[in-house]
């Protein structure tokens, strides 16, 4: 419990399970992530059935505060990502961890 999965682990898993060269696997993992990022950059929603949905949301400008000094600070309008896990992922995470 508590292990961290990284790019290297994903490349290794793809290499073992699909049997492609390590070079191909590393490239495919990288391009997969990059294609998701560039779709989001274009403002597209990315829907991966069984996994979840990534969406870009626009946040308007608001007044915030510097948490360290307590001083008011303007927060510019910006775009953020929201991720909604699929029912399948939610169910497998919750059933494995909550008893």
């Amino acid at each position, binding site marked *: 419990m508590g292990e961290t999965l990284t790019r290297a682990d994903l490349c290794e898993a793809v290499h073992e399970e699909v049997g*492609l060269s390590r070079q191909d696997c590393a490239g495919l993992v990288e*391009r997969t992530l990059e294609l998701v990022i560039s779709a989001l950059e274009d403002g597209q929603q990315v829907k991966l059935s069984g996994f979840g949905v990534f969406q870009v949301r626009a946040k308007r400008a608001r007044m915030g505060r510097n948490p360290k000094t307590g001083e008011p600070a303007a927060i510019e309008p910006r775009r953020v*990502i929201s991720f909604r896990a699929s029912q399948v992922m939610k169910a497998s*995470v919750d059933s494995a961890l909550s008893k």
Partner: protein
Amino acid sequence: MIKSELIAKLAAENPHLTQRDIERVVGVIFGRMTDSLAKGGRVELRGFGAFSVRSRPSRAGRNPRTGEPVPVKAKHVPFFKSGKELRERLNVD
């Protein structure tokens, strides 16, 4: 973009691989991420973001139709925090 479009793009970039292999690759990538979270682990992908599991305490909910109180059990939910590079790329002016 949906999963099949992602697969089609990867297949176009890798003419030496079969569509079937690419499908399996994409399945392994997202499947391993889900497995890791289901084991209580994290997923950390620099430049992209990190997935973790957050626990939600039990609380008193309500049936929205009748207004009756309903107990909601404690649960574990997947959580995603976007990486620095992704946040910056979404906000270039």
